[in-house]
């Protein structure tokens, strides 16, 4: 397992886990969210090839109501 930080929370994910797999495990539709990995935006098309490494910081964001 590798330790990553997801939206400020420490989590453990399997070795070679991609961001897409993490989203699926959380039942999140990739087309609804925007992902930043270590302050870099990850294009949706690259989510399935981006592997999480020890110490990575992941931000998963979405749009909601706002003024």
């Amino acid at each position, binding site marked *: 397992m590798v330790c990553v930080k997801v939206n400020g929370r420490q989590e453990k994910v399997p070795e070679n886990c991609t961001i897409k797999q993490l989203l699926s495990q959380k039942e999140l539709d990739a087309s609804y969210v925007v992902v930043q990995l270590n302050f870099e935006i990850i294009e949706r098309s690259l989510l399935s090839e981006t592997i999480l490494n020890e110490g990575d910081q992941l931000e998963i964001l*979405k749009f909601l109501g706002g003024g």
Partner: protein
Amino acid sequence: MAKDLLTIGNSSISSRLFLGTGKIPLPKMKQVIEAAGTQVVTVALRRVDFDQREENILDFIPDGTIVMPNTSGARTAAEAIRLAHIARAGGCGDWVKIEVISDQKYLLPDNYETLKATEQLVKDGFTVLPYMSPDLMVAKSLEAVGAAAVMPLGAPIGTNRGLKLKELINIIIEECHVPVIVDAGIGRPSHAAEAMEMGASAVLLNTAIATADDAVAMARAFRLAVESGRLAYLAGMGGETSYARASSPLTGFLD
């Protein structure tokens, strides 16, 4: 009469009522947007809450509506710039409402950080609409760095208190060339009409509609007020005088 369109960036729009989507229940969203006749809505960007299953707000916004993410939550220019780029990657297009706030009591925008963020995001190809405290020199600076519009506040966010800063907004309308959109503080349709009568290009509001007992009916009320105020501005209002001026002829009276 020629169609009265508002041009911002590369878009020409006919509705001068911009709507914030905060606090509007998703099942009602489409109805409220349609009743308001709005073509531009704002949304916010936040971390996904894994403990709560939430639907996607974008599914509740009618096709063809311009979605303008805001940078709420940003306290510095750097944070606003980061949020704007994340929002664009989310697929909502190039429009962004800059909102940089570190004052939690009155939620007043930080004009200095807002100007820095605007300058950078214009360079990055965004259509930038900054929310600002109504200061003429800042408005002119925002215009100079390429803001697509300036959005001075009428009163603090969510207060429904109307155009408390009217004199300052008037000066900006008079002196700036970019569209002036009154954002925040508008609580009643009469406030919206007043802003439009002054020559504002549009108004942006959220709380006044979202917290009404009947949000759909209130959206329609605001739509009519904005149209009415705009029409009055274009029609050219008569001047005020101190003393009475008879409307009926002062001749031909009976003996």
